[in-house]
């Protein structure tokens, strides 16, 4: 069993290493970068600047740059707006955290509302004393009914 686990872990490490060493894929990068003129991702754009950026990506891949190096180079030229997804640091981190926060707040709200509703619909507490006014009216009605 231990040998099996060790083999599995080794396979995972090797796979991760191979992925890290693999050159970036141009098509993937084009889907993650935005044309600064038409503001669609590069794979959706044929604008002259988008074509130039695609050529740049291929040049940099051929030169051995990593995905991050290519993105950094394009951000240095066109600004962070060129990234289709905001960076996971600094102000861009807000774009990732806010939806998560909204999801958590929504879940808490749903739980609170459901608890309140189920509390209303639940059985009455037998130990709780009846309202004196209501008790009097019930007694009067019963007396009238029996009489």
């Amino acid at each position, binding site marked *: 069993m231990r040998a099996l686990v060790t083999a599995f872990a080794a396979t995972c490490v090797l796979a991760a290493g191979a992925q890290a060493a693999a050159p970036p894929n141009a098509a993937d990068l084009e889907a993650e970068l935005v044309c600064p*003129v038409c503001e669609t991702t590069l794979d959706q754009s044929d604008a002259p600047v988008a*074509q*130039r950026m695609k050529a740049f990506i291929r040049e940099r891949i051929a030169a051995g740059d990593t995905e991050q190096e290519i993105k950094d180079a394009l951000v240095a*030229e*066109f*600004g962070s*707006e060129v990234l289709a997804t905001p960076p996971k640091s600094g102000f861009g981190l807000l774009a990732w955290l806010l939806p998560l926060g909204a999801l958590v707040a929504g879940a808490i709200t749903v739980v609170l509302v459901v608890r309140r509703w189920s509390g209303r619909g639940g059985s009455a507490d037998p130990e709780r004393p009846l309202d004196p006014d209501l008790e009097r009216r019930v007694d009067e009605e019963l007396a009238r009914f029996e009489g």
Partner: protein
Amino acid sequence: MAHRGRLVAQGVAVGLVALLFLLLVWTLVTEEGGDLAAAAARGERPEAPDFTLERLDREGELTLSTLRGKAVVLNVWASWCLPCKEEAPFLEQVWRENRSRGLVVVGLDSKDFRKDAQRFARRFDLTFPLVYDGPGDVAADRYGVTGFPETFVLDREGMVLEVFVGGVNADEDRARLRAAVDRALAT
């Protein structure tokens, strides 16, 4: 207690909506671009938004307001833009002809690679100052430029006299630009 909590939650929600509304109003009010061409066409002389950008033709930066006292032709271009290639030699000619009279042509390269822009300048033998606005913060956000090229003629006080949307390539447009330069130099 629950009532108080509900009131606080309602207050926070109303506050958030008010904050978003104020943000929208602020964005609309502070947006400078887009109206310059319309205002110039109405005969108004709106102030050209100031900027400081890195230079492409040499080290350092250029601040537009330091050119007060000179007439300025501000040309927004990019190396991948075809009409820009056609008008570049004409702008160089206007610069050389009027430089001694107090005209500065400023080429504002936007949404472009620095190296491509520098190659473009060498190819067309441009000698006027060139600045770099890769993300388009100045061209798009402050000057409202939506297409390339676009040219702004500013008088000696930094006011926009005339705006040319698209290439200044037709004879009549070139005559209009020369006339605007003469007016700007006369201020």
